[in-house]
């Protein structure tokens, strides 16, 4: 827990440094922000490994702490990857906050509602991996959507070049669409595996009225939203700002699903 809190603190420091960079774009600040992110990933990984060893789980999906922590750290990893390969300078300002949120959820829910998960078959094993993988991709899509909306607004206002470098609309749309497509595929798999678990009669926390449970309703609404957002090749009128707004809405619902899961009644 302490290691993960350390990672959160370092990520917050990185966000602050990135904000300072908006006013004064120096190389020192860039390096400081980047090294904070690397240290945060290091600390977070150490926390996950420590936790995994103490709980004898090989994959980071044994409980809330592992699942949410892994999603948060993978988001930071994605930022580091993009900034290393072909940077979008302002990306960390949009992806690190959801990463911090995930890590904080990992710490909080890992403490008060660990929800230890013991998969008994392939479906039960795949279900959390796909669902959390979908959440990860949706967070990236939502960040891309946010950046798209801000950049489109700045272009419409005809604000002069300068300010945070958000990349180009075309690239942000590509990031948004690719991440949404990946997340949609993973979420679909997650939902199918969930249905299989219920169909096979395994014990779940959803009870007999599982179809009306907040978790299922929210997950289904996320699925609908992203199905619409991914509709742009068929209905191109949805491309651009509408697609970006749908991505943000989808992630908000997905986050709501994650929270709803924590407060589901019944036994795991």
């Amino acid at each position, binding site marked *: 827990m302490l290691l993960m809190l350390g990672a959160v603190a370092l990520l917050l420091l990185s966000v602050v440094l990135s904000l300072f960079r908006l006013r004064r774009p120096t190389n020192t600040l860039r390096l400081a922000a980047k090294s904070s992110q690397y240290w945060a990933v290091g600390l977070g990984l150490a926390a996950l490994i420590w936790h995994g060893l103490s709980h004898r789980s090989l994959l980071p999906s044994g409980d809330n702490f592992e699942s949410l922590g892994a999603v948060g750290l993978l988001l930071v990893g994605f930022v580091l990857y993009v900034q290393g390969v072909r940077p979008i300078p302002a990306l960390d300002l949009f992806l690190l906050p959801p990463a911090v949120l995930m890590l904080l959820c990992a710490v909080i829910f890992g403490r008060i509602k660990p929800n230890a998960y013991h998969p008994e078959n392939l479906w039960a094993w795949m279900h959390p991996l796909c669902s959390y993988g979908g959440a990860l991709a949706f967070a990236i899509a939502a960040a891309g959507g946010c950046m798209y909306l801000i950049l489109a607004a700045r272009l419409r206002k*005809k604000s*002069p*070049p300068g300010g945070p470098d958000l*990349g*180009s*609309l*075309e*690239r942000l749309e590509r990031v948004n669409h690719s991440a949404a497509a990946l997340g949609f595929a993973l979420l679909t798999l997650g939902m199918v595996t969930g249905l299989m678990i219920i169909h096979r009669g395994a014990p779940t926390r959803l009870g007999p009225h599982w179809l009306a449970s907040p978790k299922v309703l929210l997950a289904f609404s996320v699925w609908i939203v992203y199905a619409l957002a991914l509709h742009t090749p068929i209905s191109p009128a949805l*491309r*651009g700002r509408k697609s970006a707004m749908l991505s943000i809405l989808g992630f908000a619902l997905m986050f709501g699903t994650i929270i709803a899961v924590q407060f589901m009644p019944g036994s795991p």
Partner: protein
Amino acid sequence: MQRLLLLGMNHTTAQLDLREKLAFGGADRDAALAELHGRFPECEFVLLSTCNRTELYLARQPHAPPRFEELLQYLAQKRGLAADELGRHMYQKTDRDVAAHLFAVASSLDSMVLGETQILGQVRQAYDAACQAGAVAAMLNPLFQRALAVGKQVLTQTALAEGRVSVASVAVDYARRIFDTFADKTVLSIGAGKMAALVLTNLAELSPGRLVICNRDPAKAAAMVQTSRADVAPLDDLADHLAEADIVVSSTGSSAPIITRALMEAVMPRRRYKPVFLIDIALPRDVAPEVAQMENVYLYDLDDLQQAVAATRSQRGAALEAAAKIVADQVEQFIVAQRARQLGPIIDQLYRRWHELAQEELSRTLAKLPQVSEAERRQLEDLARRIVNKLLHEPMQMLRSPEGSHGSVIQYLHAMEKLFNLGPPQEKGVLTPFPEKGGQDPFSGEPPS
């Protein structure tokens, strides 16, 4: 002891035709460096020649050739120009002002377009060429290395290199914010006027996949094609080309808009709502203003682009101040470092001489005092050393500090040599006198900086 000299011409002192005549290409520059260095082997040379400037940097002994007149004569002869005429367009700088000027040049503060990054590479090339010709040594090496570092610092630590300063280049910046890649994009020019040609020239730096020119007069469009390798299309096919184009530059002389909202509403579904960047540089406007309200259409007219240019210029005020401060600080640091290097040997010599004198006098006195023990002798030697050190400490500190001296360093150096009968230091290139700002070097007889 060496002096820094600069003889140069830039866009503020000469028109393009004269700058072109004086410009040195890579091979010409190398040949000129070799010739100058062969003629004056004790001197150091760097020749910086770009489209906006030709500058000859030189380091030499204070009284040695070549003088400015000889350099001017050489350049005029080399380029077949009249020395008098050339001299009217050239500036001369010495010592501190040479360092300040070079640092400003490397930082693009002396460029036609503030914040352009090309100049730093050109300074580096000039320096590398001089290094290869063996024309730089202890004086110009540190100067140019410091200049390159200052240029990099200014361009990375200030916002000077951000934004553009012309309508055409602002349009390119906006295009980069809309599109990621350009090899798969089509640029459509409606009209074939001078402004359109200028914008297309700037857009060409993005290497778009295809360029189409729609014009009422096919002959005019064909003339533009010769320089820009574009396809020509009649204006009647405008809707078809709008459906394919990603960037549209419009500059016709039409009195009514030729791209209306109705036209774009018909075109957008055909282009599957892909974003389109419309640059309307015509007066009166070619694109109806209500087109800007459409989704995925980014319309910029001349006013918008000019406002962006103005905003960029005003934003640069702060960046310019920051850059100027960096340059001023670095010039000061360079001067202080050079001052320390040039005074060091003379001060060492003075200390040595006075300590020798003290030791001589002490030995003479001790010879008259045979009863002095070894311990007492050591005490007396320490006493003599401390007295010499204390006597010299304060004046030497004042001499080392740039604020402490009111005349030029060379004056102090000569005065010290004369007053204390010190020989000139032998280390080549170490001593570099820098007359104080605005002062005149009385020994070289050269014009003040």
